[in-house]
């Protein structure tokens, strides 16, 4: 049989190889890669949730790694991740800074009072500008910012202790160096 008649079969085999690999579990088609990785984190200065007269700024956390977490009381996944954030906050000295994304202030404060407050500080983002600057497209999203102010990791979806250990802590330690 002539070799060229095998071409269609070969092409399909290659395509199916890709499909097989895609099913492997490593691939998430919903994920949009962030262009912020290894870039300076977008700074923000915004009224605090607890006291609007106070400002929360990212720069003030320079010198230590920070976990920035975008959330909202309207978001189902945030409700799911909240207890996990409390756990994470117990096992680490790294501050968790929350961004209340387009949320009702009273409801957000109520939520933290009722379910616990894992945040060192919470900034409000009423018009969504901060979220846009960070390339957020679906809450909850969490970013790891290095001590020098670079974004070194992003996780889309609810955080968990396991993800913290496996993905975030690893990067924190790598940054700290040998």
């Amino acid at each position: 049989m002539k070799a060229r008649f095998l071409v269609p079969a070969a092409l399909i085999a290659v395509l199916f190889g890709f499909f097989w690999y895609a099913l492997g579990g490593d691939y998430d088609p919903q994920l949009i890669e962030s262009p912020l990785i290894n870039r300076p984190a977008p700074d923000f200065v915004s009224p605090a949730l607890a006291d609007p007269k106070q400002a929360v700024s990212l720069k003030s956390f320079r010198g230590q790694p920070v976990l920035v977490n975008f959330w909202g009381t309207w978001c189902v996944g945030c409700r799911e991740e909240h207890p996990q954030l409390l756990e994470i906050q117990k096992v680490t000295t790294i501050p968790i800074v929350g961004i209340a994304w387009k949320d009702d202030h009273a409801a957000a404060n109520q939520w933290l009072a009722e379910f616990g407050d894992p945040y060192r500080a919470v900034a409000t983002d009423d018009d969504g500008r901060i979220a846009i600057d960070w390339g957020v497209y679906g809450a909850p999203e969490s970013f790891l910012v290095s001590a020098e102010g670079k974004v070194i990791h992003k996780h889309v979806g609810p955080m968990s202790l396991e993800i913290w250990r496996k993905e975030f802590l690893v990067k924190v330690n790598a940054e700290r160096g040998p």
Partner: protein
Amino acid sequence: MTAELGQIALILALCLALSQTVFGLVGAHRGWANWMAVVRPATIGQAGFVALAFLLLVSAFLGNDFTVQYVAFNSNSELPTVYRVAAVWGAHEGSMLLWALILALWSLAVALLSRSLPNAFASRVLGVLGTISTGILLFILLTSNPFTRAMPAPFDGNDLNPLLQDPALAMHPPILYTGYVGFAVAFAFACAAMIEGKLDQAWARWTRPWTIVAWLFLTVGITLGSWWAYYELGWGGWWMWDPVENASFMPWLVGTALVHSLAVTERRGLFRSWTLLLAIFAFSLSLIGTFLVRSGIIVSVHAFASDPMRGVFILALLAAYILGALMLYAWRAGQLRSSSGFELWSRESFILFNNILLVIAAALIFIGTLYPLILALLKLGTITIGPPVFQLMFLIAIIPLIGLLAVGMHSSWKRARLAPVKTRLIAIAAVAAVLAAILLFTFGGRVRLIVFMGLFLAIATMFSAVSEPIARLRRGLSIPRGAVGMFVAHFGVGLFTLGATAASTYQVEKDVSIALGQSEKLAGYEFKLADLRMVEGPNYVARQADVIISDSQGRVITTLHPQKRIYRVQQQPMTEAGIDVNWQRDLFVALGDDLGDGKWSLRLQYKPLIRYLWLGSLIMALGGILAASDRRYRTAIAGERAAVGAATERA
């Protein structure tokens, strides 16, 4: 008991499908007549049991049997009866059962209508269909069982996704599946021919009507989906180049190429290995589409809930069928050389060009849909291919195609005999150019070459499709139904192009913020928000607006009632647009949100000639019906019936 009976029915169907396969393929291979005699009854039995299982599932829905998990997830006691039936195919498990049912019914049709075929060949065809049925039924029983019980049973169900609670969308899957599952028949015919090592003009004549019927159902199915998206989704779009839409469009493009290639093979015995390849790919693309939608590797509004386990199973089935068929192809294709000739500008040439362009269009859409996936897998980042890119790629292939179509309808077999029609072609071109220019001028706006081309080609095609048969009738020739079908279908293509060009280019849309009693103007019409009130539906609550539309003279044309519904169970908001239709344009009004201050957001759209694109598609399908019911196919069936009748009489 219903669910357990359903499960038993499926298991019996699987056994019969297995018999169909084994007795068909082995029996034909060995020439054992008594084995081959089992195939048809096995097929009929399989169809019967799959149908039984399906009906049992339907009855579970109608009876609100929430102890069946699938019913609980997809239905609700307040769901109107009609949608309880549609809910059967509203999610993965049920839609796979529908897939299996439709395949079984196609196999049944082949079993009943194939007595004029040589016994061994028919057995092989049914045997190949049996392998597919076996695989699908196994998949259903092992990974996607619709009859699993939910213990303890919930008090009421989750309700059917409100998006699916609509007559057009309820019909869309069955018709669509009839289409692209129907390509399995052409696939089976191709495999049988490859196994036998014989492919001649008779083979093409047998395969053609089956393929045309599958194709026309696919055409209608896609049209329904597009029309539904337009009036239901609220933003007036009719094609989004969504991956799942593309997954149904690619088989359509290849299927169209196949229908044309079969014509050449039937008539002149040419393009045989190419036709084989197309027959394999049409169904392969259907299978790949089924895989993409259910495996979770593609992001789409259409995608079913994903489960990698299922994805792996389907991929394994796909590999078996598609690679199997392509290996047969590699084995046999080299043996199919013919020595017939044809000239440039003969009908064969036109169909060659048609095939090349259609396959290029399908390939471009394929690349656009899957290339981002491949890049992401190779960790090369997320690239983006949005609707504008697809549209551009598609137009690049399709515009030459339609141009060639307008001329090709006048062509003759084997010889290039276009000289006699040259005058007619020039006349058509001139008239079309003038009419297109007039339309362009009437619509106003920027004059763009591509828009002129679209209008010009559409009108030229329609004129061609009408002038050629008229010329033949004038010469005293009769036109067989198959030819009528061809002209009708091509007229439909022209009409579609007209509608698509006008609607895409000249549509006007405006989002307005409007208070009760106020009016807004658009495209020479005035839209007044006259009233706003709450209404209740069977399983939803809606806010309804009354919008009065008047024309530029101030005469009231109609009152539309756009709604924003909240379905009680799933708490999902849905827009029901108000649309005023006449033969020139659609006026489209969708109700938005409360903006506060007594103001509401309304989306107004003016869509000229948009109905013609769906009408054109339906006319294409009508052409298919005419072509498939040509006398030479009906005689074959009648001959069979006579033979069966005579045999029964003698018995």
